[in-house]
């Protein structure tokens, strides 16, 4: 049976020959609307900030409902209680002051970490020894949690900001260096050759061709580095708290937990998240919009 159908298929098909035709095409101007604006609702639904804002509102509503039902402010305060604790904290100037201390430490560690990462990566793209050094060090230190270095840092630098900065550098350095390096390696051969026919070489070549061409990867590294640094810093402050009378946000959280002011603990956590959201959603988004998205290197 199967063989019969096979032979049937192998019979040569010939298409029928049909008459030819040439047609007039309607000019686009007379076709009516070719492009039509979207409705307000559709445009709102296409706005990222609106969609994300709605998610935040949803979370707040669920939180409020659950906490009210639980009715145990000592372990889980309501959203409104947390908000008023936050307002008090800001009004008394405690939260802004703690935030300021934390941000100062953070920026210091982040900046030093970036500079060291840039030095390592430049070495790695120019020399083979540099490449080996970077990959070995990254393999060794990247998996090591920054917090695990804290006891050692305290031993070396004592209680205070230098220890925190040291831990932040460690958390930023390897992630950023790794991303920068793989970004440089992925720059296309054509772009490299084009740069060299323009007469660029050495440091000018790195600055004018490699860095902008690898910018998506570098930016990803900066974002990861930022997240690591922020997380590490808050955790480190929680662990060893105050230094020379100047505590940060982590210390604020720890302090209020000790006095069982849970709403204030939540307010502190909320501040940590708010800073995270601001840096991700405003600062990094702005950088992305002006660079990689504008250049078509990343979809937006």
């Amino acid at each position, binding site marked *: 049976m199967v063989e019969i159908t096979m032979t049937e298929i192998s019979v040569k098909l010939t298409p029928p020959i049909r008459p030819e035709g040439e047609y007039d095409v309607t000019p686009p101007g007379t076709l009516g609307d070719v492009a039509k604006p979207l409705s307000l609702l559709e445009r709102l639904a296409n706005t990222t900030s609106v969609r994300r804002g709605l998610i935040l509102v949803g979370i707040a509503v669920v939180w409020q409902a659950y906490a009210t039902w639980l009715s145990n402010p000592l372990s889980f305060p309501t959203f409104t209680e947390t908000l008023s604790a936050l307002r008090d904290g800001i009004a008394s100037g405690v939260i802004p002051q703690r935030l300021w201390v934390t941000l100062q430490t953070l920026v210091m560690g982040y900046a030093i970490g970036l500079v060291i990462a840039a030095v390592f990566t430049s070495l790695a793209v120019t020399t083979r020894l540099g490449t080996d050094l970077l990959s070995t060090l990254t393999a060794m230190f990247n998996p090591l949690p920054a917090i695990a270095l804290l006891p050692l840092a305290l031993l070396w630098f004592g209680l205070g900001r230098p220890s925190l900065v040291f831990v932040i550098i460690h958390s930023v350095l390897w992630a950023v260096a790794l991303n920068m390096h793989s970004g440089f390696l992925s720059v*296309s051969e*054509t*772009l490299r*050759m*084009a740069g*060299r*026919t*323009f*007469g*660029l070489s050495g440091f*000018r070549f790195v600055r*004018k*061709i490699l860095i*902008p*061409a690898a*910018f998506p990867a570098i930016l990803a590294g900066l974002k990861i580095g930022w997240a690591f640094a922020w997380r590490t810093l808050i955790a480190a402050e929680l662990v060893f708290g105050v230094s020379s009378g100047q505590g940060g946000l982590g210390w604020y959280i720890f302090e209020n937990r000790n006095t069982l002011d849970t709403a204030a603990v939540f307010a502190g956590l909320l501040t940590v998240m708010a800073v995270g959201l601001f840096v991700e959603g405003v600062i990094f988004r702005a950088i992305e919009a002006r*660079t990689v998205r*504008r*250049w*078509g*290197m990343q979809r937006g």
Partner: protein
Amino acid sequence: MAMVQRKPPLAASIDPTAAPASQPVLTVDGVTLQYKTPDHLVTATYRVGFDIHPADRLVLLGPSGCGKSTLLKAIAGFLKPVEGSISLKGEPVTGPGPDRMMVFQEFDQLLPWKSVRENVAFPMLENRVPRAEAEARALDAIAKVNLTKFVDVYPHMLSGGMKQRVAIARAMAMRPDVLLMDEPYAALDALTRRKMQEELLQLWEDVRFTLIFVTHSIEEAVLVGSRVVVLSPHPGQVRAELNCHHLDVRHQDGPEFQLLTRRISQMLFEDKSVGH
């Protein structure tokens, strides 16, 4: 084929008593090129030699793998010959430089972080052309490739053909001694390719630049070139040097054009059958 005559290779140095019409801009003399793959040392070309004179449109034609792109990279300065020499205006080529601007086949040769105008001006600004002059030359070159409407657009918003036009404008605006093109139209669709070939010839009518053009298409070689260097398959050697300055788009369906393309394809085909 008996009717194909082998021409003697051109002498690298020109006899001063012969009163030449022009001095060659670029001389390729007995160049052997080799490159390393992880487990082989590959000879790409073997003792290749030819001259390029001002306003020549020299086409390097050959089957894929004949080393024509490698040869162009050596002329650009990315590769050192193991034997022979490449010299530009009497000076040996030692490395890449803006006196030999190159247009690549790939569309990603434009800098994505610069607009069309900035891309075209960039090599000039990096080579100490004053800003005002660089801007003016960039706009002029962009106008010549018909992209004036797109001066402030970023490369990712352009089509493949437009990107190649920008690359050509960028190379031309630099006013190099020799313009190198490595299969610049190979990744384009047939209609766009045809249009770009005609535009290139029109540009040459205006500007009279010196061009070395690499292709594996016989039609494109005869159409674009004023002189064709036919390379034999791997490793590339000069199989023929042919003139086609008198043939352009208008002659494409004519007998002379057909005869020449057939002659070249016989050369390539015959060599191929010997090789296998």
